[in-house]
């Protein structure tokens, strides 16, 4: 192969807004082929959004994009592909067709876009081309195998193969290693390094795992709150430098946590392992009145931990004790009966019933308290309680009969929390409770959690927002790769330290 030609991409003052949020403001980014460029930032910093702009997923951004010095207009994925810009998203399953073969999936774009007027598919040609692409990546994979029989790592390889099946100058990988094991990650690195350093492809590598960025990337761009903080060669940077660049000042730093007397051990988890290993050998304790944080990056297993404790994911081993009494949690139904409550992360999908009224939502977990003879619902009592909760939590709704779909995100979340206030649990598990709510609602949710702690409840607060963990917890566990890697006293730690452990520090 001859020396590959040098290509460049320059993005200039890119801005994009979504309803209520300015996701990117005046972002500049320069990329060149033949290297691996790390793109990092805390959650919500705008990394993925910026790469989606470059790959044509949005058409309502402002700013200019130049490829090899020439201004181009990228408004659709097809525009980007024509310029040789390909992206592989983290959710590989959404981009693959499970019951078609490896060859068909690799050559999908070709089959869709380059058939012209031809009506018949030349299968031997398709398989031969797919085979050539796989050879170029040096991957041993049967082109006849069906996607549904492959492992996650193999599926990712198929997507990379699809990306380079057509002319590729730039390849964007959005958190490709999050779901991979160590050996799978090494295999991916081998492929990506070969593509960049030997075949002259420009690779953009989004990841939360700092050690791996230092292993393979030569350039780095750090983003924070929709802007670029720095863009420079990797040389001379340490992991601590990157962590500091990623962090910014936020409202949580001024939040005064309500002081609560912490009592005896209320809840214990010992050696909990999820059936498929998404959570491995987790032990933790919660004392009465204590807010215990579970910190970790997206994909660290926080949600899985919350769900496994709550019985929503099956446990392989481990035990849980409430006030020293062993719990038998085989389903959420059993969990609720034994005094656990979970406010799940995916509010609209899991937390509230959007098509039902506020009152139905609020009493969904405790309807037994509102039934009389023959399980008839005592509607008066139900409504009265709902009104009280609406007033207590300051839920903005015209009436308790309003459909939850019409409430704002923050108010929906208050309903999701209010449901468990009525159910009167002992342990409250919050999984990213402030996701997608505004600052005002965030403060109210914090206050509410503080009140629960003051009542002597035990709180587990899982979040990837480190500033929140620092603002309201008493003690925090840090998760990485499904395990608890560190226990920290909140008063004695810093965002840097938590982030250090969350990114796989040792």
């Amino acid at each position, binding site marked *: 192969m001859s020396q590959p030609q040098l290509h460049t991409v320059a993005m200039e003052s890119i801005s994009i807004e979504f309803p209520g949020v300015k996701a990117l403001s005046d972002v500049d980014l320069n990329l060149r082929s033949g290297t691996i460029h790390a793109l990092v930032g805390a959650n919500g910093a705008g990394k993925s959004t910026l790469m989606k702009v470059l790959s044509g997923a949005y058409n309502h951004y402002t700013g200019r994009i130049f490829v090899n010095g020439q201004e181009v207009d990228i408004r659709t994925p097809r525009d980007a592909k024509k310029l040789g810009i390909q992206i592989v998203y983290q959710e590989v399953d959404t981009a693959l067709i499970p019951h078609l073969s490896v060859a068909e999936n690799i050559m999908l774009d070709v089959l869709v876009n380059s058939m012209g007027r031809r009506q018949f598919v030349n299968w031997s040609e398709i398989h031969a081309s797919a085979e050539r692409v796989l050879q170029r990546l040096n991957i041993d994979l049967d082109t006849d195998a069906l996607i549904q029989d492959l492992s996650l790592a193999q599926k990712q390889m198929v997507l990379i193969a699809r990306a380079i099946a057509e002319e590729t100058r730039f390849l964007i990988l959005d958190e490709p290693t999050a779901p991979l094991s160590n050996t799978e990650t090494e295999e991916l690195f081998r492929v990506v390094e070969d593509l960049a350093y030997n075949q002259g492809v420009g690779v953009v590598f989004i990841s939360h795992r700092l050690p791996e960025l230092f292993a393979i990337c030569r350039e780095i761009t750090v983003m924070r709150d929709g802007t670029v903080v720095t863009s420079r060669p990797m040389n001379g940077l340490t992991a601590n430098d990157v962590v500091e660049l990623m962090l910014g000042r936020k409202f949580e730093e001024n939040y005064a946590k309500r002081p609560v007397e912490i009592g005896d051990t209320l809840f214990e988890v010992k050696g909990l392992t999820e059936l498929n290993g998404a959570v491995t050998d987790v032990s933790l304790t919660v004392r009465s009145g204590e807010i215990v944080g579970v910190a970790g990056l997206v994909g660290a297993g926080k949600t899985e931990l919350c769900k496994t404790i709550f019985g929503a994911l099956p446990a392989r081993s481990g035990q849980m004790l409430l006030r020293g009494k062993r719990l038998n949690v085989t389903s959420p*139904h059993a969990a*609720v*009966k034994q005094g656990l409550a979970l406010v*799940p992360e995916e509010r609209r999908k899991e*937390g509230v019933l959007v098509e039902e009224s506020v009152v*139905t939502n609020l009493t969904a*977990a405790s309807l037994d308290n509102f039934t009389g003879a023959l*399980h008839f619902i005592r509607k008066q009592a139900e409504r009265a309680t709902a009104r009280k909760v609406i007033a207590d939590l300051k839920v903005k709704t015209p009436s308790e009969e309003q459909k939850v779909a019409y409430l704002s995100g923050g108010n929906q979340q208050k309903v999701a929390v209010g449901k468990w206030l009525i159910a009167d649990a002992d342990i409250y598990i919050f999984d990213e409770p402030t996701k997608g709510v505004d600052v005002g609602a965030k403060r109210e949710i914090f206050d509410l959690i503080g009140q629960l702690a003051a009542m002597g409840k035990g709180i587990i607060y899982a979040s990837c927002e480190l500033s929140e963990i620092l603002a309201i917890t008493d003690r925090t566990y840090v998760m990485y790769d499904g395990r608890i890697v560190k226990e920290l006293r909140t008063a004695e730690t810093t965002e840097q330290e938590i982030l250090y452990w969350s990114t796989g520090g040792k």
Partner: protein
Amino acid sequence: MLAKTETTRAPLGAQVLNFITKWGTVLTIVLLLVFFSIASPSFLTVSNLITILRSISIVTVIAVGVTISLTVDGFDLSVGTVATLADALVISFFVWYGWSTLPAIAAALLFSLVVAAINATLIVKVRIPDLLVTLATMFIFEGVALTYTGGGSISQGMPRLDGTPTFGTIPNSFKMIGQAPWIIIIMLVVVAVVHIFLNYTKHGRYLYVVGGNREAARLSGIPVNRYRTLAYILSCLLAALGGIMLAARLGSAQINAGAGYLMPSVAAAFIGFSVAGQGRPNAIGTFLGAVLVGVLENGLVMLSVPYYSMNIVKGAVLALALAMTYFRKK
């Protein structure tokens, strides 16, 4: 936010459309009544109205069962077959074994629960989609009913297929069930009881919650699978009751007698969705849906539309009901 500002501006067209989706069923019934009374003088007589109610009572009872399966976001296609099976069982108990009314009815209802158990197991445990499971059991139990009867019909005094003479009789108390006013009263009681059950009890509330968002329901601690099973048990029981009413009305067990009830039942349940702006399966809406289908059928017969063309009209009504339900969802 966007949708909200649009509704506050509510152009006249949207308001009219909204009114029609809410009250379209009732409106259509009224219009049909007016139209048929003008077209045929004998239409709007007490005896004919009773005929209509009698003719829809079996459909309504089965359709209310379908409605319950719809509340959990399921779909029971096996109701027609269950009706056939219950019909064959209850008549055979009388004619072949000489049982009396109550034990025969109780046994037929109990046997139909086998279908419910199989449906629920395959749907809840094996996780096959509802539609496909009940399609399979529909065929299986059609075959079971035919095999049980020996591929023929059963009626009083008729020897069994192997030539054994039969001596049992169908009690008059049982035949009463198939006559007005009893058959109509049974229908109205079923509609009222299910309406109260769905709207005023804990279990009804849970059925809707499970159907609205299974995962959210599960994470609220509701035993989701138990309620999905309950829905299939109830739909099966009501289908069997429909089959028993059919047996009482015909006084015999015919081959695939219940099959014809599936389509109008599904139509009635879907028409019922939008009645009074409920936007979800409900018993009273289903009853009105059945009335609509019944009035249409009766009126068309009076206008001498041949029976073999009737399915065109019934199918079109179902399509229209579905269009109303799904168009609104957009």
